[in-house]
């Protein structure tokens, strides 16, 4: 593949890349100036025509979502920036916020102009301390420079951005859980419809967008929709509903690789390219046994599926849930999938909000069954039981409110199907593993 020049990450090695001075020196806030000279609907149409799809996990077309807002609404209309980034393996939003906070703020301002919002709430996971400090400082710089507040750039546009810190709960990343949390309540996702665009934060029309999505918005204003569509994967001609997978994407690669990294590449690179060409190969000269394609919610690729293109359609074709957050986690061939799956299941049972019985109980059962297998007391029947529980929970079977449950089920379904031998060997061998720290206190 020809070398690709990063755009979203172009500035991260610039000294003081997080400051307004360097950002403006590098042409920052010219895209906002351009957007403010356009009618809001024209900005929305540009983003819609670019084919930008949300980077937060669901891949919903960004401009299209903006058009769902009621027309001529008297306001307020809110933008929520989803910076809760908590899907295991994912850290690209952190790079963007720590290294180039002004790129995000400019994207937010452009989006707010497009959707006619004067109030943006940036929901940041609590654990991102450096992101918090950098964003807080950048927002203050903007107020001082007339880039936030009233009459921005003298163009009659008003905008306030509020930084709101979460409290270490994965479910706050689900868009309606985020909204409930922002309102000061437990982060219980809402039943949809109504969708946030109709009734969201404080019961007003609301758009929720991911950090990387909004950084793409800023780049599209600068470089145009043709530029955006020159990168990535065109729509599948055999699938009239596929809007394509255009644009650059940040992939995070971690786990058993020599050089874990966050890299920007055209949508559609393969897991193999990421591992071999960007992450220094599998560590200790080993081979990959399994690869998470986009955060653990998406399931697993087997070693035979490493040439799957990681665009919005690729992972689904080999039985994964989707591209998710494009977080690639590599598991080497010396690792047993029982331990990997137990780790995944435990995450979801810890993070389920508890509203829906199939999710609350299902995640807990799956963890306990896997714990039973790990303790040497598993039986072959447990494998079918795991699949049965996994198949009955989630939005897809229609038994839960939000997608956490589908994300909990997917690694289980994929692991039992693609790595059944690992589970059978484990049960037959009488092996035992224990968690190496006491968990009683929680």
């Amino acid at each position, binding site marked *: 593949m020809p070398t690709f020049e990063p755009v979203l990450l172009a500035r991260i090695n610039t000294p003081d890349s997080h400051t307004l001075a360097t950002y403006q020196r590098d042409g920052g806030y010219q895209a906002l100036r351009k957007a403010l000279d356009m009618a809001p609907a024209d900005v929305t149409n540009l983003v819609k025509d670019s084919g930008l799809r949300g980077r937060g996990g669901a891949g919903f077309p960004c401009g299209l979502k903006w058009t769902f807002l009621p027309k001529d609404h008297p306001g307020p209309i809110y933008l929520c920036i989803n910076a809760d980034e908590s899907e295991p393996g994912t850290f690209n939003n952190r790079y963007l916020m720590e290294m180039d906070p002004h790129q995000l703020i400019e994207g937010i301002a452009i989006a707010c102009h497009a959707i006619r919002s004067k109030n943006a709430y940036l929901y940041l996971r609590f654990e991102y301390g450096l992101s918090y400090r950098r964003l807080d400082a950048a927002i203050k710089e903007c107020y001082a420079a007339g880039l936030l507040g009233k009459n921005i750039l003298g163009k009659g546009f008003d905008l306030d951005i509020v930084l709101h810190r979460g409290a270490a709960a994965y479910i706050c990343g689900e868009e309606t859980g985020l909204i409930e949390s922002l309102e000061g309540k437990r982060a219980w996702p809402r039943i949809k419809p109504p969708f946030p665009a109709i009734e969201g934060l404080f019961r007003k029309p609301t758009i929720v967008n991911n950090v990387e999505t909004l950084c793409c918005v800023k780049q599209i204003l600068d470089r145009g929709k043709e530029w955006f569509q020159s990168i990535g994967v065109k729509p599948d001609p055999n699938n009239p509903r596929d809007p394509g997978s255009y644009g650059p994407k940040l992939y995070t690669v971690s786990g058993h690789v020599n050089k874990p990294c966050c890299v920007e590449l055209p949508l559609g690179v393969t897991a193999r390219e990421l591992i071999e060409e960007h992450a220094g190969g599998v560590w200790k000269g080993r081979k990959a046994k399994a690869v998470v394609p986009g955060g653990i919610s998406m399931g697993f690729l087997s070693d035979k599926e490493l040439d799957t293109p990681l665009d919005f359609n690729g992972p689904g074709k080999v039985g994964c849930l989707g591209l998710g957050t494009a977080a690639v986690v590599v598991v080497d061939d010396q690792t047993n999938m029982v331990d990997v799956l137990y780790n995944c299941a435990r995450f979801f049972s810890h993070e389920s909000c508890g509203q829906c019985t199939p999710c609350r109980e299902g995640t807990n059962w799956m963890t306990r069954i896997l714990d039973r297998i790990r303790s040497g007391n598993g039986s072959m029947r447990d494998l079918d039981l795991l699949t049965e529980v996994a198949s009955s929970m989630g939005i897809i079977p229609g038994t839960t409110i939000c997608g956490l449950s589908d994300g909990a089920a997917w690694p289980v379904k994929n692991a039992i199907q693609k790595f059944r031998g690992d589970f059978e060997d484990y049960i037959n061998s009488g092996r035992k593993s224990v968690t190496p*720290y*006491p968990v009683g206190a929680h």
Partner: protein
Amino acid sequence: MSALTEELREKIRAEFPKYPNKRAVTLPALHIVHDALRCVSTESIREIANLLELHPSEVHDTMSFYNFFKDEHHPLGKHRVWFCRSISCMLRGGEELLGEVCQKYNVKPGETSADGKFTLEFAECLGACEGAPCALVDEDCHMTLDVNSASKLIDGLK
């Protein structure tokens, strides 16, 4: 005597203009109190509720959802140290690291060291998987740790 000093109340009130209603200040207020007092006591909940014009049960309901906040029976130590146990860290020895720290300092996750210096926690993915295994010390993430570098961090806490 009230649980919240005037300074803390002022900090909470300063959040009001950012939101269209006071209930939205629940999480910011809990953070302000928790950080300063190392827990949110029942009395603090009552006083926060008063400031936000809510029923104390509403504040408690929200607070109890987030395991993040400690009540007066389990106050935080001076510092809080979180070791990541999620997949990328687990694959690179994060769970064993947490086990070694537990043993060395004789604390379990969720507990505070006998000298009150730090509360140990396990964390789910800290979003720093390129530096697995990693730990969050108060608000700073430290990457690629082993038991030696982790002990150095903990011993260096003031």
